[in-house]
């Protein structure tokens, strides 16, 4: 790969609408959290040919995610999803579950595989097992530090994707926290997760999206981009799920410029307007702690360390 790749996640046509994709090289389509997300590209298979063509015409790569926790009853759909993504010409399938990895392998590896955030990749040996099963790229678990990721990339011979900005995935379940009735009959579904909901307790803030728990603070590696470049990372993601079009557009623009500058070498400094955008879109503050081996919610750095309104 020449240069770098900047990816954004987009769950549905609703999230795609109004998002300026010009800063991005690739779009990961669909939500891994819930099959009932309205317009979920990972569920509405008829949408895939059109959106993949659209992205290709715009010079973008198109990846399609899969459910993070597919129960037995979900597997027939997942098998159809893998076929549909391949038939639509998607450039890769993002997989979080080992059973799904096995299904895709058994289908003859018709599409490249990227291991997603919930695949629990912690070691180069695990990445190697997934590589042998068809994975060409892995996104290590959020807890894996940058130092560990560099070892993993070197030893396993796979591309490593780094979350540079956005909510950190902290947990996933298969029962929606935002509903009081079964999801088939609760009138709040599927609208409940379109609204923003925070969980607060003591000194902690988390974001709930129903079947997923995300960090309250936004991961931000803006000031550390030169280090990422020096460490050899080339694939970066902005987490765009459950965010606004403005978020995806403006944060993407910041990272396109910042990464271009970091890859050009020479002096690198976080511009005020970049920092302002990062702060403006992070009402609960910024963090990057896992990257440096500390608790996820901490911020390590000297530029945006003040952007933490919580205790």
């Amino acid at each position, binding site marked *: 790969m020449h240069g770098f790749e900047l990816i954004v996640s987009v769950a549905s046509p609703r999230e795609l609408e109004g998002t300026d994709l010009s800063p991005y090289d690739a779009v990961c389509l669909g939500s891994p959290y819930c099959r009932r997300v309205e317009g979920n590209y990972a569920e509405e298979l008829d949408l895939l040919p059109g959106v993949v063509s659209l992205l290709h015409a715009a010079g973008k790569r198109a990846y399609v995610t899969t459910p993070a926790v597919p129960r037995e009853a979900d597997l027939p759909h997942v098998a159809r999803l893998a076929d549909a993504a391949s038939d639509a010409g998607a450039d890769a399938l993002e997989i979080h579950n080992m059973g799904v990895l096995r299904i895709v392998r058994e289908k003859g590896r018709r599409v490249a595989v990227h291991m997603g955030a919930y695949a629990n990749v912690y*070691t180069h040996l695990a990445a190697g097992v997934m590589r042998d099963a068809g994975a060409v790229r892995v996104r290590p678990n959020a807890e894996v530090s940058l130092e*560990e990721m560099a070892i993993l990339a070197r030893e396993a011979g796979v591309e490593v994707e780094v979350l540079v900005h956005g909510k950190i995935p902290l947990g996933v379940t298969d029962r929606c926290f935002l509903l009081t009735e079964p999801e088939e009959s609760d009138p709040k579904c599927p609208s409940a997760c379109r609204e923003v*909901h925070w*969980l607060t307790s003591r000194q902690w803030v988390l974001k709930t999206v129903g079947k997923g728990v995300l960090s309250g603070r936004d991961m931000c590696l803006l000031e550390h981009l030169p280090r990422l470049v020096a460490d050899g990372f080339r694939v970066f993601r902005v987490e765009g799920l459950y965010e606004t079009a403005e978020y995806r557009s403006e944060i993407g623009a910041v990272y396109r410029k910042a990464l271009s500058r970091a890859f050009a070498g020479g002096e690198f400094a976080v511009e005020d307007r970049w920092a302002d955008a990062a702060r403006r879109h992070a009402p609960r503050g910024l963090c990057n702690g896992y990257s440096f081996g500390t608790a996820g919610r901490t911020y390590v750095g000297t530029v945006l360390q003040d952007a933490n309104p919580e205790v």
Partner: protein
Amino acid sequence: MAELLASGGSMEMVRAAFDNGADAVYVGATGWSRRRAQYEMDDDAISEAARYARSAGRILRVAFNTLPASSEVPLFLARTDALRDAGVRDFILTDPGLMMALKNRHPDTILHASVGCTIINVQDALFYKEAGASQVVAECRMGKATMRRIKAEAGVGLEVLVHATTCYTLLGRCTMSSYTKQGHHVDERGKDHFPGSPNRGGLCYRICLSDWDQVGASGELEASGVVLPNRAYFLADDIPDLIDLGVDTIKIQGREYSVPLVGRMVRFYRDLIDACVRDRAGFRMDPWRERMARIVADRDVERREKTAGLISESLDR
């Protein structure tokens, strides 16, 4: 007949579990299992426990079921080599890469895929079988239909946790604890215990069990005192069904509980399983409920005390 697997958080607990009827006991290797170090065992203690198991004709299983750093793989191989030399053959692992490495190095080892693998469908079970596991632990909320399929199609043993208080999220796929607090404690062998990360070092601060408020986009309170669901699945009532289903291992957790309580729990499940197997047609659950309720009440008291302590420990001072 289904094996009864019990917890061994200390040598005293290992003895109590075996003496009260456990067919097998699992212990955690210090720094490598899903509990903090005080409930794990060093190699000398594990060797002693293995000898005790062998003398009783039972099995000792050693958990290396955390997810380490890549740089710690040599430590894992050296430690499992030493334990194998001491006669240990049964291991519980989570990382598929470690599974393959250990199985390739020592084909005579017996590997079980831990609850941390989050095995939720038959294809998951087949994946971990290919990685070297001969038995898989069912995710705590797995339905019985999926268990049947795994038994029928996967060709691996199936282990089910009974009376485990499950996590709000799927166990093994949660980093809420380490998001709030994570440290580093490197022991004399060079193993990082990653305190605060249950996946990496075992200590979970259980922040999900704190009292939460749900707040909207503008900070408006939507609900107060929100409880993140954290229920127990597969109660004693399910045991007859699990036996009928052909489950290979019934596991009761509890390394953090007191030794007398673990002894009572093991004896209860031993008696219940034996009674059920002895007279399946005539087996009725009712006579067992009162004894079960007393155990559950005592267990919950111990658990609540531990949880309050863990949450307090996680707060910045």
